[in-house]
């Protein structure tokens, strides 16, 4: 162990500095970086007390070699990079204000204090005072005063020691970091400060000065965030500070300011849940804060006022407004555990909601406004819901097992005579209180038939016209149909609404009349529509003296994703989800608050070809498209995205493979031919077929255009399909659907991704293949003769058994001919809050029997 005087140490340091070209940052006081002058000036001070110490044996510098140590004032604080990346260095500040830069010294932190404590703890001499014992005692005592230092870069030399009497202060590497952190804080560079603080915390948790810096930093950063308008982040930061140091100066006020702003903004947005959330957050930390009491009182006051408005509206008979106000009151300040409550909220809320039940439904799509019959082939689930709510067909499928079963709201009875060639219909002359559609007369029915039987009318139904030879009105509530030939099922012919022709001016400034068709049979009507919701009102209100009231209003609340919709359900914003993603089903099934009901029929995803597209007429190309898809992979990884993978399956046809009967029994889909297996994935065959197809197009396949229904799951799957096809050498471009493109007769697309649910395959297959709303003979021209005639034959079959056999054959032939690409079938689920009653199980449609549903008033009681 060598002992060195500070002077000899200084020379060694100088030599080292010259060798390494080491430069220091600025000194503490000056934030600007300036290169340190590494070489001490010549003519070092000989009066330096360090030099008066004993010198070493061999390395005692000569007078010429002595150099000065850098002064503390000249030392520059290392930069963050130096502190983080370079080897750690401690500063030993001598009493002469000179600084020795060394490797980290130990113990640390509080090196001098620790050493002094040891010195102080050194016991007095005990024992026989022999010279040896005394010398040993003195050596040990002396040793305790020596600080062991290692100079940087001195690999060969041993440790040096330095008597602590010369040391004024030791600034450890960590202290230097803290100083740099202070600089950052002063400069407002909080991110840099936090980085260093984090490193310090990881390397030396609990270093003295760390907590103080941290708290200060948190506070200042929260303030900055708040000033930058990021109040929520500021709040999180303040809460973090509050958790460790609730007494930090200024914290309470700042918390109040930030929380107050958040609550104000939330209230301004009408998001009371959010406002309450922040309020309760503040309350959980500073219960007595003035912001808490002020806002609690305000919100309670607003809720009470809303409740008063609700009562006034209710008394005035404005039921919808009464419910709006009651909901507003509940939204502003619902009943929460351990919180003050709005007086009479529950009884008033229940009363108005019982009288005017409102059903809130969470959806991820809104119906398109411009849907027409031509675009119906791309009807979304939203369009189908809208159609179901706003239109009542004469006959509707009630449930389906080995055949579809129909029900009618309009007819009391219908009796075939003359071996089925005539059918006399008797209309109902009154309606139940809960029913929402008007009573229709035979004249209205006649008008509907006239439109559909008239070839010049846009509603012309060729199939119906092929069966019906005449319609005769017998009495206001009786009419008779006569048929050219007996239909297999009369009900399936009459699955259209009652309409009437009206004459209206063409435009506001054009008095010429134009004929248009108006729906007479409706359940609900569209009341209002905005960007985030669509509202439907019951067409005919129930009498005010009814014993029980059924759904009067349906509000479809739009959410951006399925996840958000589920969140809305869990939060109580909505009471029903007409469709959920498969992966959310298990979670919701386990939740006792909800009933998750599987629909009677699953939905089928499929790819169809544009009958007017020249490119997709090539059969090799169509088959190449089929073999190029690894449908199992896409189904499992993209579509189902759930570990069970039991709620979807590959299919080989557009018909449902299975369903649920009226008594919830699992039944096999009668039209689905189980002998036809789904095509397996065969990329090499796909490539070969696409090459063969390419020869028809001059050696290179043109790029195909894929139109996709607006459904989040479908769009995701469509992107995967495009990738798979691309891997097989078939380029496909996914189009953004718009109304011009969405026409069956358009040639702006080649293939379309559709989602269908076939309730009656025997009747629906033809329009499905032709992408048209009704079955027209002309539209079958794109099919091969034999297949066309098979479809026509199916349409003409008179008995059910033959129709089923023909459907099974068609399934096989459609698959072989690659007329369409069935992708997969997904079980469909509807989620109802357990406050809803009256829906069928299983439902064929989410809104089935909605006129009979009751919605028990429900207030969310859990805190946000």
């Amino acid at each position, binding site marked *: 162990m060598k002992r060195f005087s500070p002077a000899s140490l200084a020379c060694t340091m100088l030599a080292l500095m010259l060798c390494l070209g080491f430069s220091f940052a600025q000194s503490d006081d000056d934030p600007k970086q300036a290169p340190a002058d590494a070489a001490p000036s010549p003519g070092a001070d000989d009066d330096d007390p360090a030099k008066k110490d004993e010198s070493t044996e061999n390395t005692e510098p000569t007078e010429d070699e002595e150099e000065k140590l850098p002064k503390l004032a000249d030392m520059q604080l290392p930069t963050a990079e130096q502190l983080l990346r370079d080897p750690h260095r401690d500063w030993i500040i001598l009493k002469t204000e000179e600084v020795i830069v060394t490797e980290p010294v130990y113990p640390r932190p509080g090196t001098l204090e620790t050493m002094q404590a040891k010195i102080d703890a050194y016991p007095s001499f005990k024992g026989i005072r022999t010279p040896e014992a005394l010398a040993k005692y003195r050596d040990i005592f002396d040793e305790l005063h020596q600080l062991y230092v290692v100079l940087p870069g001195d690999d060969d030399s041993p440790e040096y020691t330095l008597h602590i009497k010369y040391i004024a202060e030791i600034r450890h590497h960590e202290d230097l970091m803290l100083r740099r952190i202070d600089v950052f804080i002063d400069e407002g560079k909080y991110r840099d400060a936090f980085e260093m603080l984090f490193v310090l915390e990881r390397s030396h948790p609990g270093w003295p000065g760390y907590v103080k810096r941290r708290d200060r930093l948190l506070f200042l950063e929260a303030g900055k965030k708040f000033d930058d308008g990021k109040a929520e982040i500021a709040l999180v930061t303040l809460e973090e500070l509050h958790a460790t140091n609730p007494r930090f100066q200024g914290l309470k006020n700042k918390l109040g300011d930030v929380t107050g702003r958040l609550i104000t903004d939330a209230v301004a947005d009408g998001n009371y849940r959010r406002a309450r959330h922040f309020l309760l957050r503040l309350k959980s930390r500073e219960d007595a804060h003035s912001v808490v009491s002020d806002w609690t009182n305000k919100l309670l006051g607003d809720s009470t006022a809303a409740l008063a408005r609700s009562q006034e509206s209710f008394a005035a008979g404005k039921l919808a407004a009464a419910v709006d106000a009651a909901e507003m009151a509940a939204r502003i300040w619902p009943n929460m555990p351990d919180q003050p409550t709005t007086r009479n909220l529950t009884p008033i809320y229940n009363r108005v909601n019982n009288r005017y039940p409102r059903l809130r439904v969470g959806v991820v799509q809104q119906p398109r406004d411009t849907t027409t019959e031509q675009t119906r082939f791309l009807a979304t689930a939203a369009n189908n819901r809208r159609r179901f709510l706003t239109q009542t067909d004469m006959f509707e499928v009630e449930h389906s097992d080995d055949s579809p079963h129909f029900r009618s709201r309009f007819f009391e009875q219908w009796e075939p005579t003359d071996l089925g060639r005539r059918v006399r219909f008797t209309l109902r002359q009154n309606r139940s209180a809960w029913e929402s559609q008007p009573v229709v007369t035979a004249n209205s029915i006649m008008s509907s038939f006239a439109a559909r039987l008239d070839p010049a009318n846009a509603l012309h139904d*060729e199939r119906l016209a092929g069966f019906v030879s005449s319609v005769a009105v017998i009495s206001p509530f009786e009419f008779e149909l006569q048929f050219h030939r007996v239909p297999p099922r009369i009900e399936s012919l009459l699955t259209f609404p009652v309409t009437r022709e009206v004459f209206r001016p063409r435009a506001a400034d054009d008095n010429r009349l134009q004929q248009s068709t108006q729906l007479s049979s409706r359940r609900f009507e569209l009341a209002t529509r905005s960007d985030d919701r669509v509202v439907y009102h019951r067409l005919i209100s129930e009498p005010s003296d009814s014993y029980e009231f059924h759904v009067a209003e349906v509000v479809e609340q739009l959410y951006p994703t399925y996840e958000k919709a589920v969140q809305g359900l869990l939060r109580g914003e909505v009471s029903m989800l007409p469709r959920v993603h498969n992966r959310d089903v298990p979670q919701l099934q386990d939740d006792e608050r909800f009933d998750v009901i599987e629909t009677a029929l699953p939905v089928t995803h499929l790819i169809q070809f544009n009958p007017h597209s020249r490119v997709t007429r090539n059969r090799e190309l169509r088959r190449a498209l089929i073999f190029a898809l690894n449908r199992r992979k896409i189904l499992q990884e993209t579509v189902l995205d759930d570990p069970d993978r039991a709620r979807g399956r590959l299919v080989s046809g557009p018909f449902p493979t299975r369903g649920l009967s009226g008594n919830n029994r699992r039944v096999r889909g009668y039209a689905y031919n189980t002998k036809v297996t789904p095509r397996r994935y065969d990329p090499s065959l796909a490539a070969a*077929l696409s090459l063969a197809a390419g020869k028809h197009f001059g050696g290179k396949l043109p790029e195909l255009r894929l139109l996709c229904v607006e459904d989040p799951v479908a769009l995701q799957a469509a992107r995967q399909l495009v990738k798979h096809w691309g891997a097989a050498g078939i380029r496909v471009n996914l189009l953004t659907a718009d109304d011009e493109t969405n026409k069956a007769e358009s040639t702006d697309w080649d293939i379309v991704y559709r989602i269908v649910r076939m309730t009656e395959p025997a009747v629906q297959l033809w329009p499905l293949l032709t992408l048209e709303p009704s079955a027209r003979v002309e539209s079958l*021209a794109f099919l091969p*003769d*034999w297949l*066309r005639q098979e479809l026509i034959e199916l349409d*003409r079959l008179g008995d059910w058994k033959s129709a089923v056999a023909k459907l099974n054959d068609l399934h096989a032939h459609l698959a072989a001919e690659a007329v369409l690409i069935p992708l997969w079938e997904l079980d469909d689920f509807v989620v109802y809050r357990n406050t809803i009653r009256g829906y069928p199980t299983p439902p064929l449609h989410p809104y089935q029997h909605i006129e009979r549903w009751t919605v028990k008033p429900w207030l969310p009681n859990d805190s946000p």
Partner: protein
Amino acid sequence: MTGECRMNLPIASKTWEGEAPAEPRAQTPDRLSISLSSQLLERRSDMDVIEPTDPRLGGSFAVPRRAYCSFMKRCLVVFTFAAFFASPSAIKANESFESQPYRVLVSVAFDNDTGLSRDYRRATLQDLADVIDRSYGSMWQADIVENDWLFPESNVGLQRVTLDHFKSQVDTAKFDKAFLVTVEMTGSRLNVSGRQWGAATRTIGPVVSAATFDRRDVAATTADVIRQLFQPVLTVERVQGNKVTLRMQAGRHSPADPNAAQVRPGDVIQPFFRYLDEKLAVRTIQSLPWTYLIADSVDGGRVKCSLVSGLRSPLGSSRRRSVDVIALRVRPHFDSTRLKLVPQGIPSKPLIGYSVEAVTKRNANDKPKREPLKQVTDRRGAVDIPTATDGPLRWLYIRSGESLLSRVPFVPGIAEAEIIQLPDDSIRLSVEGDTDLLMIRLVDTVARRAVLIARARILAREGDWKHVDEQVAKIDKLPVIKNFESELTLIRVPALEAAVRDKNRFAEANVNHICTRVSGLIKRYLDQAPVRTLKTDIAELRKLDAEDKRLLKEK
């Protein structure tokens, strides 16, 4: 001879279609007695003049009494006997068909509107008589009468008239043509409707209507309607290939009004067969389907026509005595004709979704005059063929997909509806479907084989013989020509048997054509030559590879 127009009350006559053989126009002479012939002769004071009252027996001739001798008397008697005892055909041959005017009945029913008074009716009928006389002249011997049996006296009543009812009211033996006309008043509009009955075909035609707002114009309007309804009668004189010469009744009589000409070049004439019994009475009348005669030229009573038909030799070149061929000039009365397609032998089954292309041209090999009208049969198996404005004739091409089932000429608008029977196409469709599915499997097999061959070659170049053998094994397992041919046979044989059983040569020919084509494709694309080449190449490569390895080892 001038025709006479008389206004008489109609008298009832016997009904004569269906149940009883028709009475010939000319009485068989063997039924007449000598005394009748004597009564036909009138004695003049200075001459013995033979002037039959029945103008059908020819013109009169006078013989001076002084020159009258017993020999001449005997000759005259013999001649008279000969005239009466000669056969009807000879009488017919003697009397000129072209000279025979039409015996026409025009029976006009006026509705009970007070605006149509008795005087007005009388005057109208008189005017009509004048117009007809001016128009047709000697061509017609017309009786114009007021109808008192039609009810209601309107278009509706006319529509309801049946042939039996008509024959019960009109003595059809006395007339060649009868026109039933109604005049009804609807507000200030006078609607004139008419139907024609013809002795030649013994049918009652469709209703044609016209209207006028001028009471004075009713007679002219009625005459127009009659002109539209009138169908001149012609007989076939000679057939030479597709050129036919016809003789037109009353052809020698030129109408006073050129618009009343019976036939003009370009007119469409429809032939009928009249089957005669042993007594040469008309037994049945049959129209020739899809056969028309287009008038090329008219010369007096002879009309030269071109034959347009969907049948082969519809008129034949020789004429049987028991078959009479007559023809009527037809004109479209309707805006369109509803044409229904049914399979032969199954009239209740409509053929839906079949393509009907109507091409405006005269002969099958001509170029179309304009863009063809393409339609598809509806759910009743029918299409509406509109009346052509630029020439009455169209050729119909009836297809099931690409297969041409029928090619026939057609004049739309003559009848409101027609039925065409087509050969049964179900066998062909079934075979087409089965062969299509077979072709799909063929394409798959060919594609798979190509992929496996390519893979085997790549692996062979890399020297991965184990996997090469695997690919070759897979190729060997693929179906070959004989597998597909067996399947094709299973399709072909039952179909041919069914076609032969149904005597459906059309189906038989189609089945053979389709199966032969598919067989050719099977042989072409599943030829084993590429596989043999592959195996040879692989064997060579394997040998080379082994040689290389041996040399490498030696080194």
